[in-house]
């Protein structure tokens, strides 16, 4: 691979195009162009400058992750946090453990709470109908020890289910905020490849 300024900027551009807005991309590219320009005026070769900057792929990955996390912070959506998570995941092998697994666990937790909520919110009214039918004396629906208590229990189950669903929504928002903060911290600490160590 040619280790020239052109190559560095070309890789950076090709990795970031489509993710970053043109204006921001130009700003970043101009920083590196300036770096090369001043470096060359300083008497260093393009190759030398290229090497000390490190892999343009790693640089691009980090910029990409930073940008996507910021985007997820500004516009909250499943898609954005997912992209931010994936971009951060690409920063290092480490993050398979420190990003992917917590992310999956949280999503599963949220889904489970949601499903429980839905099940209760549906089973509650069903149990309510059962208890009414039991009060009316239809034996096939006799599931409650005391059908009158059953009326109240089924109301309780329904409202509890609704609470779980609503609570899940707030829990999701909470995890979203915490998640963004964690990803930001992660980007500032986790480096890409470790070959320069």
């Amino acid at each position, binding site marked *: 691979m040619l280790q020239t300024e052109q190559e560095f900027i070309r890789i950076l551009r090709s990795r970031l195009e489509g993710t970053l807005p043109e204006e921001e991309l130009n700003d970043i590219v101009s920083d590196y162009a300036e770096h090369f320009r001043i470096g060359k005026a300083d008497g260093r070769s393009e190759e030398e400058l290229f090497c000390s900057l490190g892999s343009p792929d790693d640089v691009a990955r980090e910029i990409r992750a930073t940008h996507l996390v910021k985007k997820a912070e*500004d*516009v*909250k*959506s*499943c898609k954005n*946090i*997912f992209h931010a998570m994936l971009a951060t995941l690409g920063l290092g092998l480490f993050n398979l453990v420190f990003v992917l697994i917590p992310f999956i666990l949280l*999503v599963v937790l*949220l889904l489970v709470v949601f499903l429980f909520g839905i099940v209760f919110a549906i089973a509650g009214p069903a*149990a309510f109908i*059962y208890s009414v039918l039991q009060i009316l004396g239809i*034996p*096939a629906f*006799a*599931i*409650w*020890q*005391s059908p*009158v*208590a*059953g009326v*109240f*229990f089924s*109301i*309780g189950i329904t*409202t*509890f289910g*609704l*609470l779980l669903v*609503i609570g899940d*929504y*707030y829990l*999701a*928002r909470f*995890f*979203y*905020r915490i998640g963004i903060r964690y990803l930001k911290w992660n980007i500032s600490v986790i480096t890409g490849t470790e070959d320069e160590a």
Partner: protein
Amino acid sequence: MSTDDQKPRHPLCMACNLQIGGISATRIILWLVALTIISFFIGFGILALSGDFPPQPGQAVSPFRHTTILTPNTTVIPLDGATEGDVRITLGAGDLSLQGGAPATALMESTVFSTAAVWQPELVQGINGSVKSVTMTEKGHKGKEWFAVDSPNNWAISLNDQVPLRLSVNVGAGDNLLDLGTLNLETLKVQTAAGDTIIDLGGYHGERYDAVINCGVGDLTLRVPRDSNTRIRVHNALGDIDNRGFVQDDDQFVTAVFNSSQAVNEITLNQGIGSLTLESI
């Protein structure tokens, strides 16, 4: 993850100020919490007043009906002077315990421990010449009791020890104990679907019999007296065989005193999934 198109500066603030039909989310949540607590409070209150709460020892903590104390329901099927018996038992879900010891004038005495009326078995009896027949079938309860998952349904059946019996047992899910040592068998058919089964012929001194045992999923233990002239043919599907005291020849297991020129108790055993224990006692 939440999806909303707003761009809240402070997510928490925005969430608290969320409006649903002009009422704030906070108020809705407070109402739901209050309603949940009050409902369960009143519900358990009613149970407490009716004496069902707190639970008695051995009773589960649940407002559902299967926590009521089991009421046994006993039925006696008389022999009506017959000299042979034909007994067919079909239990879909529940535990079966079968043994001898019925009164001399009765073919069968069955006790059903069950909570739900719909679980009561159907009993059909008839007499044909010298043969008294009885069919005891659980009518099935699909879709009716899906709330009461753990409802116990136990059958305890005693049979007449004297008259020769054609016994057919068909069990679905549950654990079964067939204690047949004191009976007088002509034929025995056992069909199991899921669950552990013990067939104990220990101390059997009745007539020669033929038996067919078909196992589904679960462990089966078969006990045969060591002094009986018995041959077991095992058709093994999946699972291991623990042979305790039989002489094995390929898929045949015979008692130590086996002599093919005399009357042989033939047992055909089709093993399903699960371990098989053969005991010569």
